[in-house]
């Protein structure tokens, strides 16, 4: 599988990669993006099987990225990984077509629970 991980923090991208491995989802081809616009380009270029994306990012936010992708008919499973996990944001994410929202800080167990339906071990 190809997985795009988009976050403007390099530290957080590394933590997401590590947590994927801890959750039993290691060995996949991971592509990193430092903002939403870069993620949009990488998604267009690589056609990933999953997108893990921060909400607040420069250039293009996670929600804007998701909106553009869905408007273009791209149905790749999309999961927010963000510091803001309010019920309102979870509802916004769901309404926009996201698979789910993982709030930071997270655990491998949460990754496993949310991503198991779309990621192979």
């Amino acid at each position: 599988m190809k997985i795009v991980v988009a976050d403007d923090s390099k530290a957080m991208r590394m933590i997401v990669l590590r947590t994927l491995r801890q959750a039993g989802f290691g060995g996949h081809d991971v592509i990193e993006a430092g903002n939403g616009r870069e993620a949009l380009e990488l998604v267009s270029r690589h056609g990933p099987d999953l997108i893990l994306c921060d909400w607040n990012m420069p250039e293009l936010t996670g929600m804007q990225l998701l909106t553009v992708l869905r408007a273009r008919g791209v149905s790749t499973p999309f999961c927010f990984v963000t510091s803001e996990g309010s019920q309102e944001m979870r509802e916004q994410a769901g309404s926009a077509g996201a698979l789910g929202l993982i709030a930071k800080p997270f655990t491998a167990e949460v990754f496993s629970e949310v991503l198991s339906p779309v990621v192979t071990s």
Partner: protein
Amino acid sequence: MTVRHDLDQVREDLQAVLADVLHAVLGEEPCGLPGAPGVDDPAPAPRAEGRDVVGGAPAVSAVLAVHDDASAAMLGVRLRVPARLAHRLAARMFACDEPMTDDVLDAVGELANIVGGHVKALLFTRARLSLPSVALRRPTPAAAEREGAPSTTLRARVLGDLAELTLLPRMAGEDLVWPPTLRPDVLEGQP
């Protein structure tokens, strides 16, 4: 809504946010309950010109803000951690022994981002969160501080160092970077 009033009411919740995030990110249980021994204000330490200090040690500061869409009020969120703790934080996040300075700044910014997200969820219904700005030097006081607006400071001791969270009501939000707010029709035109 009066942010100051709300901060007084949720002080224990804010303390728990700081402690929980530090615990989750650093893997160490901090002590920081209000009035607990060892978390009182340290004696003021002399500051080297242009350098920030917290708990008497050189510090790394990250600042962001929450903009309340309903009242247009701005709440500043500032996290300051001693350089030694910032280094340990980055080493843990990047899984290396000697993180680069940029990695240390990135790690502290992300820690502040996580704390800010939880503060936003605790205090606001519809609000926007800025991106964090991080500096090794002492941050320029926010306009609210220059005007003497009351701030709320919480501290937690972890790995022998003191992390400090300050909330700044009436922050002007100058010099902060905000995520873009493009309309859907503009988004459609993205390359």
